[in-house]
């Protein structure tokens, strides 16, 4: 399909010239950079230094975020996190009176640049509207999520709710901002005005800054601009931008995203406790955390040249990013997470789907209570192996659900005339919902978040990402070493070279490469054979049967020439049964030959499934247990 999508700022590796011009120190002269992420619970400071011409990560400092009462000033948390960096490095960064950051580095103290991302207080929360759910409302949703927002609700004429229900919903929400789209240019304006009348009559109130006008971005039919201005400007901080869907075949989300970004700074951040001060500390705009994370994933895609999927598996949300054929899409599953939202994973996936990843005799009711206890005490960590296995089982399901959600957004433009095969039996949205993401063409999967970073064995991260996303063909897997993707993302807007150097040397852990042919067959039949020319000149050959998982060690600095021969209808990227000759990268886990089928086939019976899981775990030496007698007791 040849739909046209906007140039979603896919050339992020080029610095933003306007932002660079405002810097106190030119990038090439910088020696020390401080970046923070003001998270909803923790403020994380990361300190970078240029040594021998190369930028490296120097030190981390963390402290609780202070956006809530009794503190209500985010700069306190930032100061505390930075003070930890100061203590650990002996390098002074804060001014003596604590009122800000010392600029520039004077040969002894201070930094040349300070930048930050923020998701404190729940990040940027938006409501979006459009006329048709699958057309303009969906484009508005993409624009908002692409700008780093959590979308609280999507209002559309055909969303299945009556007017009074929509009004009640809008009244009950306290968004930071509204994005209203609707209609193609040249179309009738009355239906757009109906939607806006609905929004205005609901009198929505902003979450922060009681008494201030709620920001509203209008990005609908351009012919309605004057009417919108006349009708809406008395009640909202109105910003009118170009239509994000000027015709059914074209989607241009960039102007709306920029407007969201500007209003986020001007109206939302300025009303959040302490942000006025924080904005004075920074040289460049504060970005929402997911936007920083998205920029970092784009940096990986641009530097590897591969279609890439990235994931931020957090305590409260799961953010999935894809760069596929240069199209960038971000999705936020606002209620899928590993601590605060762990029970939402339980609710959406179902207990059985979580239990299917644990090959042990466990009490289902007990597992359910354990997950609820994690929800109410979210900062606790697994002490026993069983607890670790439970969390990693939940993570697989959170990733699976997050990816399903993402694919529902990463779709071809719905409503495009060229695609519609309208008959009396097909509705507007039918069968156009399929995603354009082809897992066989994804070359890189990168993950970040506490569960992945804290996994005691890297193979656990690799298999969690593999089981959750089910990569097909040949896919490299990366993870964040210490949580710093948002930091490097915001840094990349003004100094992409520094960001990538830190990324490459200190942030990205190369887990390895997974080779997983697409297709399924009967258990025990041959899936593929592989011939690897190892760095020492030795040739390793291996064959994989259906249901098998094997590992070949190959360290991260090495590659191996490979001839992959998929059997029968199995496909590794060249077509069914076609040989693929390629170069395979190693990693801390190595090369994983995954013959479990795509879609992944888990045996139906509990006994067979448990046996299979233990065989796979043994191949990866996943946990310190006896895989033949896997009793995990809690003393």
């Amino acid at each position, binding site marked *: 399909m040849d739909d046209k999508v906007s140039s979603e700022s896919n050339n992020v590796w080029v610095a933003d010239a306007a932002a660079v011009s405002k810097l106190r120190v030119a990038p090439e002269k910088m020696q020390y950079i401080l970046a923070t992420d003001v998270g909803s619970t923790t403020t994380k400071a990361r300190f970078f230094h240029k040594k021998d011409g190369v930028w490296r990560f120097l030190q981390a400092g963390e402290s609780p975020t202070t956006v809530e009462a009794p503190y209500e000033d985010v700069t306190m948390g930032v100061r505390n996190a930075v003070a930890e960096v100061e203590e650990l490095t002996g390098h002074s960064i804060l001014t003596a009176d604590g009122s800000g950051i010392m600029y520039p580095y004077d040969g002894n103290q201070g930094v040349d640049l300070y930048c930050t991302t923020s998701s404190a207080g729940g990040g940027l929360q938006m409501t979006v509207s459009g006329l048709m759910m699958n057309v303009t409302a969906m484009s508005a949703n993409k624009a908002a999520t692409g700008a780093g927002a959590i979308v609280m609700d999507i209002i559309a004429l055909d969303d299945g709710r009556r007017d009074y229900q929509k009004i009640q919903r809008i009244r009950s929400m306290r968004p930071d901002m509204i994005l209203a789209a609707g209609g193609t240019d040249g179309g009738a*304006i009355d239906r757009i005005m109906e939607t806006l009348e609905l929004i205005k009559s609901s009198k929505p109130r902003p979450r922060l800054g009681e008494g201030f006008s709620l920001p509203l971005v209008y990005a609908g039919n351009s012919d309605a601009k004057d009417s919108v201005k006349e009708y809406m400007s008395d009640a909202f901080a109105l910003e009118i931008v170009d239509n994000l869907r000027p015709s059914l075949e074209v989607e241009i989300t960039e102007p709306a995203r920029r407007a969201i970004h500007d209003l986020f700074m001007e109206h939302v951040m300025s009303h959040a406790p302490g942000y006025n001060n924080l904005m004075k500390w920074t040289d460049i705009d504060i970005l929402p955390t997911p936007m920083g994370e998205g920029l970092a994933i784009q940096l990986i895609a641009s530097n590897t040249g591969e279609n890439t999927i990235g994931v931020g598996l957090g305590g409260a949300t799961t953010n999935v990013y894809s760069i596929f054929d240069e199209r960038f899409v971000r999705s936020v599953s606002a209620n899928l997470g590993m601590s605060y939202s762990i029970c939402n994973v339980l609710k959406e996936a179902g207990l059985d789907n979580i239990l299917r990843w644990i090959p042990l005799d466990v009490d289902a009711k007990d597992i359910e209570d354990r997950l609820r*206890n994690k929800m109410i005490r979210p900062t*606790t*960590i697994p002490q026993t192996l069983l*607890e670790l296995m439970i969390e990693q089982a939940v993570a697989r399901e959170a990733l699976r659900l997050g990816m399903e959600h993402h694919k529902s957004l990463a779709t071809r433009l719905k409503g495009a005339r060229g695609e519609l095969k309208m008959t009396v039996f097909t509705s507007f949205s039918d069968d156009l919902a399929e995603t354009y993401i082809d897992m066989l063409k994804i070359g890189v999967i990168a993950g970040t978040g506490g569960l992945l970073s804290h996994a005691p064995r890297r193979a656990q991260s690799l298999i969690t990402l593999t089981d959750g996303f089910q990569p097909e063909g040949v896919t490299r897997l990366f993870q964040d070493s210490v949580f710093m993707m948002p930091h490097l993302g915001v840094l990349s807007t003004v100094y992409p070279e520094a960001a990538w150097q830190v990324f490459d040397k200190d942030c990205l852990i190369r887990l390895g490469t997974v080779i997983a042919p697409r297709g399924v067959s009967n258990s025990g039949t041959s899936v593929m054979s592989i011939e690897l020319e190892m760095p020492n000149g030795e040739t390793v050959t291996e064959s994989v049967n259906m249901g098998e998982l094997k590992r070949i060690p190959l360290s991260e600095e090495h590659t191996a020439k490979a001839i992959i021969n998929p059997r029968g209808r199995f496909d590794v990227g060249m077509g069914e049964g076609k040989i693929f000759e390629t170069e395979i990268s190693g990693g801390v886990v190595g090369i994983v030959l995954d013959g479990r089928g795509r879609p992944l086939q888990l045996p139906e019976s509990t006994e067979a499934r448990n046996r299979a899981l233990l065989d796979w775990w043994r191949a990866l030496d996943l946990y310190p247990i006896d895989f033949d007698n896997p009793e995990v007791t809690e003393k």
Partner: protein
Amino acid sequence: MSEEAEGKVYAYTPGLKVTKSIKIRKDRILPLAGTVLVKEGDRVTFDTIVAQAFIPGEPEILNAAPKLNVLKPRLNEYMLKQVGDKIVEGEIIGQNIYFFGLMKKFLYAPFDGTLETISKYSGRVIVRGAPIPIDVKAYVPGTIVEVISNQGVIIETTASFIQGIFGIGGESFGEIHMITETENEPITEDMITSEHAGMVLVGGSIVTAEAMKKANEVGVVGIVTGGISSKDLTEFLGYEIGVAITGEEAINITVIATESFGEMPMAKHTFDMLKELEGQMASINGSTQIRAGVVRPEIMVPHLEEVEAVLSDENLDAGMTSGTRVRAIRAPYFGKLGKVFSLPKGLQQLETESKARVMEIEFDDGVIAIVPRANVELIVE
């Protein structure tokens, strides 16, 4: 094992407050600007309305142009009422009489309120109902110590105060009644009778779904217990709770678990204190919010004794040192009480092979064990 140099460390998870007598200042604030109905020094009781505000009434959208059979841009010419005018239910607010008076179309006001919009774009009329009052009640008896103009008040009271770990249902009040003999017994359906209407029932280790349903039916206002099972909670509510933001459930009862999910005897200290308070009136609130500004459920029993201690977050953030009372809040020692035995320096490897900062706890049964500091909460008694 060497101790931390500073000798005191801070709990990652603040402990839950359980205290017999403490001065509490309770903010009672309107969600939007309004009128405060009491003044400084006033004594208030549980259900005194202390502040009131009005939110704009519900709007209704009338598809006027087609109803009156007029063109959308000309709708205004056919309206008898204009923007800002008061309207009365059943009143004609727009009319179109045409064809020599033979054809008549009318637009009626659906309720008492105000006409808000006449849209020349959509041909619709928006009318708004009368403002809806929002009352803020005192919830705790006490004295008004501060009036925040147009917003609300601060009430000061002395009370026994117990924080729970998780709850459902909002603010309520009723007489405390112990329904189990000990902290180890579950609350079951057969224990609850119609005599318990209006009461806050306090029991031991768990409450079953059937017991919650029965209590809800007979008019019990609250249940306080040690644990609650996830399955029972889902069965009682009819849906699964995904994120821990509660308090707005459509139920008439407030249920509070003081310890955890799953069966867990109520901490003896808490149980004994509630036993002493039996027969007194308690304010309870099940509202729980784990994320962004933690809110825990609470049980308050106001009394007249004078006390020195004042409830504040700082009390909960007190440091830990050898001998501090703590509770393990995760497997394998989940729920066990003990005291800090030592605070080893640096990171230690756990069974999972992860490395974490830990502490040694001497549990009440004499067993000494290593527990990650993240898995411990302070017991404030």
